[in-house]
């Protein structure tokens, strides 16, 4: 039997949803009929609106996805203004205040605490500057990720910027592709550093060269069926297809249509294309694509650049991220700024927008490591830019523990989450900076924290992988983390293996400290952390982790999910001020 979601999508989906959002915004959240809420909230996702978790009824997360993470001049400022005006909650967050924007691992921006009544005004503001929340969530083409420094970077092999934009233009609000069995994540990489992270996407375009009619043509190899979620991580599989930049949009359309027609609509848990690729094998994917969806003869894969990939790749030489000052192809510079766990206060964001205007072109780009990049800074402006006070917080030269920290949304807002994440990761990194010496030569050390197995923080491709769990400590249930090691992208991508499970959260910083000390003591001269881990099996690694209580103090040990907001003084679910109107007055709730 098709799922309820499929039935709702059948009834009304896609661009028709906007009028409905506007209608409900007009009459108020409370006018959504009680017994249609599940259906409407599911549909709203297509427009980037995600109803926040229980205890936060009537508030929404709004996601805005610029293709390739590229925000044109002026766009970042509008997001900052929207965050300031609309994205405030009933109580502040102790680390971040009230009003902020989150940069995500898929190069989008998320605003929280959005009232439905404000959405039409927000959509109008976004429309004015060419931004959109369309298909940011829901069963369709999500934000197209790719090299955030496309068009500027010296490592570029083929122009990923153009393809990301072409795909965005073609497949957003495209009726034939608006209702897929499940989310559809596409990545376009153009450089030899692999910063599009194609391996963990449903559909990946990867830079390649191919000899066609005696000429070497630059374009893309195609991979299908990657993803990290649900304890079933897969790397995208090579389907042996090369596409020229001109063919790429049609190939993408063919594969998306193949997923639309053959993907599993009966069971949402088996719906992602990775499972279809498991079932069919890459050969059959290619065969069906060729026979049913493409009317010219597909080229076989070209020569790729994967051996050069360094992004999120542990010990490879080359850039692991975009932080720091880097020369562009045109002689100007781009400056990557570290954003700890991706969160930027609204006032800070407004100042950063000023900084981007004053020293660069005003463009701000978002990376898959939750950071931002200011582009087009002439050499003469570098000194002034680097002296700006905002760059002390959003640093181009951060401590490796802060540079390497990524965290997902967690129990603050997310329904699936098992533990608190962002504030905890901030506290972890602060404690690590103060208490742990990095072994010599270790300049990059990535710690990714995800609140659950959905893996939004991409934990399986970090040096230290952390994932939300629970355990008992002194008889009490407490928040805990599984610790994984060995993950990373690069030429030979590998997922972390969860070597030590259910570590109480307050013992995790001690575990990382001990792990690093053991690494320093036992490694061969100059050996990288990833190489060191690769040499050892899970049991040996587990012995090196050694969880331990330290001076680190964790205020969120208790069940943060049973609160309406983990940081409120009165945090119990029945103290929740939600649902509420935009001015904060409480609305009657049924239960």
């Amino acid at each position: 039997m098709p799922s309820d979601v499929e039935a709702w999508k059948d009834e009304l989906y896609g661009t028709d949803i906007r009028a409905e959002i506007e209608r409900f915004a007009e009459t108020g959240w409370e006018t959504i009929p009680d017994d249609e809420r599940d259906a409407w909230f599911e549909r709203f996702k297509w427009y980037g609106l995600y109803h926040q978790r229980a205890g936060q009824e009537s508030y929404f997360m709004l996601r805005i996805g610029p293709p390739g993470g590229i925000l044109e001049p002026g766009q970042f400022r509008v997001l900052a203004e929207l965050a300031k005006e609309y994205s405030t909650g009933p109580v502040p967050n102790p680390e971040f205040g009230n009003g902020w924007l989150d940069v995500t691992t898929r190069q989008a921006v998320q605003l929280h605490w959005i009232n439905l009544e404000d959405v039409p005004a927000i959509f109008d503001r976004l429309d004015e500057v060419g931004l959109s929340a369309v298909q940011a969530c829901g069963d369709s083409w999500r934000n197209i990720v790719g090299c955030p420094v496309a068009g500027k970077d010296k490592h570029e092999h083929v122009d990923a910027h153009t393809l990301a934009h072409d795909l965005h233009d073609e497949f957003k609000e495209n009726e034939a592709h608006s209702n897929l069995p499940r989310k559809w994540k596409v990545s376009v990489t153009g450089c030899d550093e692999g910063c599009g992270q194609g391996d963990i996407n449903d559909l990946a375009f990867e830079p390649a060269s191919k000899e066609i009619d005696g000429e070497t043509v630059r374009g893309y190899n195609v991979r299908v069926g990657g993803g990290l979620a649900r304890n079933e991580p897969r790397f995208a599989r090579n389907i042996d297809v090369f596409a020229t930049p001109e063919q790429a949009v049609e190939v993408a359309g063919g594969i998306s249509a193949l997923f639309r027609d053959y993907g599993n609509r009966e069971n949402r848990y088996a719906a992602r294309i990775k499972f279809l690729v498991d079932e069919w094998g890459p050969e059959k994917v290619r065969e069906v694509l060729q026979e049913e969806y493409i009317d010219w003869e597909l080229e076989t894969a070209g020569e790729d650049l994967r051996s050069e990939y360094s992004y999120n790749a542990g010990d490879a030489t080359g850039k692991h991220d975009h932080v720091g000052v880097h020369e562009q192809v045109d002689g100007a510079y781009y400056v990557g700024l570290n954003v700890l766990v991706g969160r930027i206060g609204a006032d800070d964001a407004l100042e950063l927008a000023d900084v981007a205007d004053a020293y660069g072109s005003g463009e701000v780009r978002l990376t898959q490591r939750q950071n931002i990049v200011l582009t087009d800074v002439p050499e003469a402006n570098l000194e002034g830019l680097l002296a700006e006070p905002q760059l002390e917080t959003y640093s181009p030269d951060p401590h490796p523990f802060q540079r390497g920290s990524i965290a997902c949304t967690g129990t603050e807002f997310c329904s699936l989450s098992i533990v608190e994440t962002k504030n905890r990761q901030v506290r972890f990194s602060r404690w690590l900076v103060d208490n742990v010496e990095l072994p010599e030569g270790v300049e990059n050390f990535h710690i990714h924290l995800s609140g659950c197995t959905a893996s939004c923080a991409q934990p399986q491709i970090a040096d230290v992988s952390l994932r939300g769990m629970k355990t008992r400590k002194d008889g009490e249930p407490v928040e805990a983390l599984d610790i994984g090691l060995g993950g990373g992208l690069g030429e030979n991508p590998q997922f972390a293996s969860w070597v030590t499970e259910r570590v109480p959260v307050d013992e995790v910083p001690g575990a990382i400290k001990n792990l690093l000390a053991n690494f320093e003591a036992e490694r061969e001269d100059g050996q990288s952390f990833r190489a060191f881990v690769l040499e050892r099996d899970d049991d040996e690694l587990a012995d090196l982790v050694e969880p331990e209580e330290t001076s680190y103090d964790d205020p969120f040990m208790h069940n943060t999910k049973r609160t309406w907001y983990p940081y409120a003084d009165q945090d119990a679910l029945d103290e929740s001020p939600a649902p509420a109107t935009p001015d904060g007055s409480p609305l009657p709730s049924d239960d």
Partner: protein
Amino acid sequence: MSSGATSAGACWSCSERVGVVITGRWQNTGIRAPTPAITTLGHALGQLLRLSRSHNYRTGVCLPAILTILSVTRLDKVCSSRWMHTDLQPQSGMAISVRTLDDGAWISINDSREVGVSEVWTLPAGECCSCRLAPVLLEGFTDVSIDGQEVVAGVVGQCLECGTRGSIDRLPVGRVGEGPTTERGRNDRRFRRYAPEAVSTRPTATHARDSP
């Protein structure tokens, strides 16, 4: 079970005056939407229907309207402010819609998120693993259904004691009872969830098995 409008081969209410929800394509607006109506129709799907009193709930307008019938669901109670559907087989009481939401994060009962993942449920030995009173962290709901009065869910979880990750086909998570009828003519059939730690007052789960 699904709670959307149920398709029928033909309208089953030829003689009786009944409350129904008709999903149709509205001629005046072209949109496809459900409307409640009291009617004595005997029409087949696809036919045009003229309703003297009907509501296009999407525009809030009550109007005489012509629509093409796409599906019909019977209403047990009419003139309430809620949509209450039943499947085509007449049954006692109101239908209850239960489903999983947000990728298995919730069990929703009548469009209210009632049971969430990431809580620890105590299960007797054999349901997830061999631990005597296993504290099992629920990681995701895979499905949910109603069995008599009982709401039972399929879940994936992990025992915090021994680390076994397993799936449980039918974990009872609560009951629906006949609630009082409110002044709006609405019979609540409220859901009462079981306490996650209260293993003794809860029926046992079945079909436990370990996943590899």
